């Protein structure tokens, strides 16, 4: 069984932010990068599935990302966690960062690898589109289930029983045959930590770099990015914890009476 896990190196803003000269993105100097949290859970799920099927031949977990060279950090973390192989697809600039363009590039890899299962995180923390995985499924011709909180795979029937998380804690029980694509929700498992030796080994591994063209219209174009006005915002209660606590107690009493 081969599983492909699609991952993203996400960017977070620290305390400060500047919009760059184009006016269409933030200045990248202010960004801190990491492996997307949802993708960590997706990779863990793939690794557990592989381990549960251990003893059968040819199980492989392949991680793929679309991004520049810096995004190889995310792939190295995946390798350290236990992924067998890593592929980086070259990305375009800001005009090619929409989910449809990314999905087209990933689809090129799915077409080549022909996996039994594709896992993606539900969404990325920096863009929160919840779209790339399901777009990829469509382009790759795979059935899909979005926002999955548990996976039970039956190797004999090559079917998975999954739970889809609806609002309010209600679960939708869904059955899907392989090959399929699932988008994985946080909390589905407890991701492992990579040990130091695994991190060292991961750093020495080869990452395959490929170009996949993306032809066709984009989902959108970012015309302008801006820091939103704070609005009226919250009334700040001060910087002394004792004073703040007293004010909180006072407000709580007044509002509950």
């Amino acid at each position: 069984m081969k599983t492909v896990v699609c991952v993203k190196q996400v960017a977070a803003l620290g305390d400060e932010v500047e919009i760059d000269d184009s006016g269409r993105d933030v200045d990248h100097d202010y960004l801190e990068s990491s492996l997307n949290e949802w993708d960590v859970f997706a990779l863990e799920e793939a690794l557990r599935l592989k381990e549960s099927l251990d003893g059968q031949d040819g199980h492989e977990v392949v991680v793929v990302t679309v991004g520049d060279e810096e995004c190889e950090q995310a792939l190295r973390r995946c390798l350290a966690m236990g992924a067998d192989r890593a592929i980086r697809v070259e990305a375009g600039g800001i005009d090619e960062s929409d989910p449809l363009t990314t999905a087209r590039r990933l689809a090129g890899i799915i077409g080549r690898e022909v996996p039994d299962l594709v896992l993606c995180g539900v969404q990325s923390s920096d863009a929160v589109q919840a779209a790339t995985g399901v777009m990829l499924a469509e382009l790759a011709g795979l059935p899909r289930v979005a926002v999955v909180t548990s996976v039970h795979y039956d190797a004999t029937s090559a079917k998975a029983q999954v739970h889809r998380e609806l609002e309010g804690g209600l679960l939708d029980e869904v059955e899907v045959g392989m090959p399929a694509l699932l988008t994985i929700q946080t909390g589905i498992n407890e991701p492992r930590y990579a040990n130091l030796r695994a991190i060292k080994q991961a750093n020495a591994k080869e990452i395959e770099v490929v170009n996949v063209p993306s032809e066709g219209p984009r989902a959108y174009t970012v015309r302008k990015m801006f820091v939103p006005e704070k609005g009226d915002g919250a009334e700040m209660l001060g910087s002394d914890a004792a004073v703040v606590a007293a004010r909180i107690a006072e407000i709580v009493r007044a509002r509950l009476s």
Partner: protein
Amino acid sequence: MSGTLVLAEHLGGKVRDVTLELVTAAQGLPRPVTVAVIAASPEALLDSVDLVGVDEIVAVRAGESDDFENDVYQQALDTLLDGSEPEVILAGFTVNSMGYAPAVAARRELGFASDVFSVEVESPGTIVATRAFYGSKVHGELTFAAGAPVLLLLRPTVWAPATPGGSAARRHLSLETTPSRARHRGYREPPPSEVDITTSDFLLSIGRGIGERDNIERFVELAEKMGATLAVSRPIVDAGWMPSARQVGQSGKTVKPKVYLAFGISGAVQHLAGMKGAGTIIAVNSDPDAAIFSVADFGAVLDLFDVADELDKLY
């Protein structure tokens, strides 16, 4: 291309609130406004979507049951778009929409954006949508290629619900759909819980900022002392530290207490959707840019444990 198509969402025989919000959002968009209800037996749901501002309702009879299956919705939407292409298509940014809307957009090469909280027609034919990037710290204005419909998934709870009492024309459509490759097999109710956070007047809510499992207990005690019910944000449930019955947010519960006191909650969009209706929101967070301050009435940029220590002394 003309008009705005609203895709209704329903669960267990009821139209979901987000559908009413979509109709309100559609009021600034091209007319006519058409609401599509996709189900095996959509008729029973039609009255609930006959809202002020709806010009037409299309009952799309599709699938084997009223329960959501993503391929059935995709086929139904495809058929609607084959018939006539609207300029704008609106659906909620919800778990169901996430399962089929991006697929339709990818296949038909539509303009697409999700978690949109503002949309307008800038000039005839030019749709501009606004959404957040980088943890809600910046907003982006999006434009879309001309010549194709724009499919937008709108953030729930941003628009006010449209009011009942419309007088829309009704149309019926029957589809032969192939069965969904991903099949609905049933529902699983959340385990019963002795606590109902939706009925409490005072919620003390904790998030990722509390750091470790061992810190839960002191907030359980503080909540008890203060007369509050303890609630949590998603990361606390994901970590297995608290049951999902206490979770506030889009995948948890929507709450409207008189007072919502948040410790160490940054304010992810999905969390804010679940609590911004609270009477008074007080937020303590060490990050001055935490999104929760944008909805809070009162705030303090402080170490949450310092404030908790001081509150302990007062109660």
